[in-house]
């Protein structure tokens, strides 16, 4: 398994979607939330990358912003990439959903919506998964008490 350098992937993405890149490091790549779907689609469909498998989605609360992390793998090319995106605002943070690209994102986006309160626009069935309808708040946020 080869872990792709975020710097090199960023250069290629910048050619297609110039406004997407926020910052790139050796082991990860941060992109703008609005361009998430376009970048994900490019990474999935481009034959150079061909990321056909979504390992996991996780979210972190850094107080100033939420960071959502996508672990991507290409089973064909045997390489992997860590894709990050940030969304600002605590009242109604939202990101585009990637369920239409990777069906495995369905439950994970619901989990993040449930526990972190990030809305995924375009998700076919965005509702709570661990907690029940009517539960107040999103418990994995740092300010939840």
């Amino acid at each position, binding site marked *: 398994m080869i872990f792709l350098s975020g710097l090199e992937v960023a250069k290629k993405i910048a050619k297609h979607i110039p406004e997407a890149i926020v910052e790139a490091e050796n082991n990860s790549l941060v992109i703008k939330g609005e361009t998430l779907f376009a970048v994900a689609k490019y990474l999935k469909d481009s034959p150079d990358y061909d990321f056909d498998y979504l390992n996991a989605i996780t979210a972190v609360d850094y107080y100033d912003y939420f960071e959502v992390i996508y672990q991507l793998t290409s089973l064909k090319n045997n390489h992997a990439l860590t894709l990050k995106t940030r969304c600002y605002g605590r009242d109604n943070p939202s990101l585009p959903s990637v369920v239409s690209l990777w069906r495995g994102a369905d439950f994970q986006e619901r989990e993040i919506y449930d526990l972190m309160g990030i809305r995924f626009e375009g998700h076919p069935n965005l509702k709570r998964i*661990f*907690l*029940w309808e009517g*539960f107040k708040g999103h*418990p994995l946020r740092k300010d*939840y008490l």
Partner: protein
Amino acid sequence: MEVAEGIDVYSAEELDKSEGEFIESLKATSQQPIPDPDRWLQEGPSANVLIASIDAILNWSRRASLWPAICFPACCAFEFIAANASRFDLSRFGMEILRASPRQADLMITAGTLTWKMAPNVKRIYDQMPEPKWVIAMGACGISGGIFRSSYNVVPGYNLIVPVDVYVPGCPPRPEALIHGIRMLHHKISKMRNKMSIPLLEQRKSE
């Protein structure tokens, strides 16, 4: 007939003779049928009567074969599995059979943390069990929520959902502790008072 010197050999004639004698003696002593040793079972009630109260009999039969419902939400279940397996052998108490259907069970062992999301299902299992039924709260989580007590999603004690008869502390309790709890439940059952109702008698009374 040539026989080696110094070696004593039974002749076939002697064997036949002793066999014939044994058959004759057996025939002589076997002219009457041997009585059935279990014949007393068919005799009247005078021979073997045990007088006990209905409570004692009912409680004995109930506590001697408790059937647990399969309702193990978390990790204490493994201690229950150990208690049920060969080393600790719950079948000594007549409770080796786990019932997947709560309608055939009369004991619920609440092995593990209960979340509010799961609570309605546990309550439904309890409601489906036929009377009389008992609950053992197993482990710290079953008693009070344990280390997860302050969580937003954990029920702090099964006794908020179902009535609990015996509390077995531990995190998790060892099988010995669970067996001690089961013995305590046996003692509790043996003291139960049963209300008898015979429909036909009550009908006559009302007439």
